[in-house]
């Protein structure tokens, strides 16, 4: 299964980059989100995955009695997801505001700054 996940992550990265390379601002943001998902899954997979054993110590004991999933990548991803959320929501609003001010979703049109070199 790890191979499939690896391919899936590769696809997420590729899709993210491809969308960032488009001219639409909305696609750009979607691309960033997809790329972020890819990065999160990457951390997850490289921390090695385990099925059906969440890192929660059983109610009746003080330590794990059996195998458990690595909690560190999970904590890292949690942090990363939340941070991405902050950035994404900001980005989405940026799209809105940019559209209102610059009147376009086309990134190629957002070059006025270069005219006054």
């Amino acid at each position, binding site marked *: 299964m790890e191979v499939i996940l690896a391919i899936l992550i590769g696809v997420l990265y590729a899709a993210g980059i491809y969308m960032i390379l488009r001219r639409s601002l909305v696609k750009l943001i979607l691309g960033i989100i997809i790329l972020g998902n890819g990065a999160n899954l990457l951390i997850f997979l490289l921390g090695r995955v385990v099925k059906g*054993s*969440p890192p929660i110590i059983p109610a009746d004991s003080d330590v794990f009695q059996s195998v458990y999933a690595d909690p560190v990548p999970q904590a890292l991803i949690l942090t990363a997801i939340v941070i991405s959320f902050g950035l994404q929501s900001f980005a989405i609003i940026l799209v809105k505001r940019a559209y209102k001010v610059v009147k376009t979703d086309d990134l190629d049109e957002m070059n006025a700054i270069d005219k006054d070199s």
Partner: protein
Amino acid sequence: MTLHEFIFYIVIPILSISMLLILWRFLKGPSIVDRIIALDLIITIGIGFIAGYSILTNRPSFLDVAMILALIAFLGTVAFSYYIQKRNKK
């Protein structure tokens, strides 16, 4: 056949197939409403899958995820309807 095998070989595959069927509807559309229905349903199936998976792995803590899914999926649908209503307001 043990319960584990039963869930693994019968219940979860049925759910997985359902998931793929819904995905088909999502892709086909044709209208945005159909996609929203599909999205709503696929999440609902997720709740079912998690219930099945928690039986499969004997880990009740997954049920908490199901709870969150139930709570939040609803909001998504509300938002989409809100959007469609606003969009069609002239």
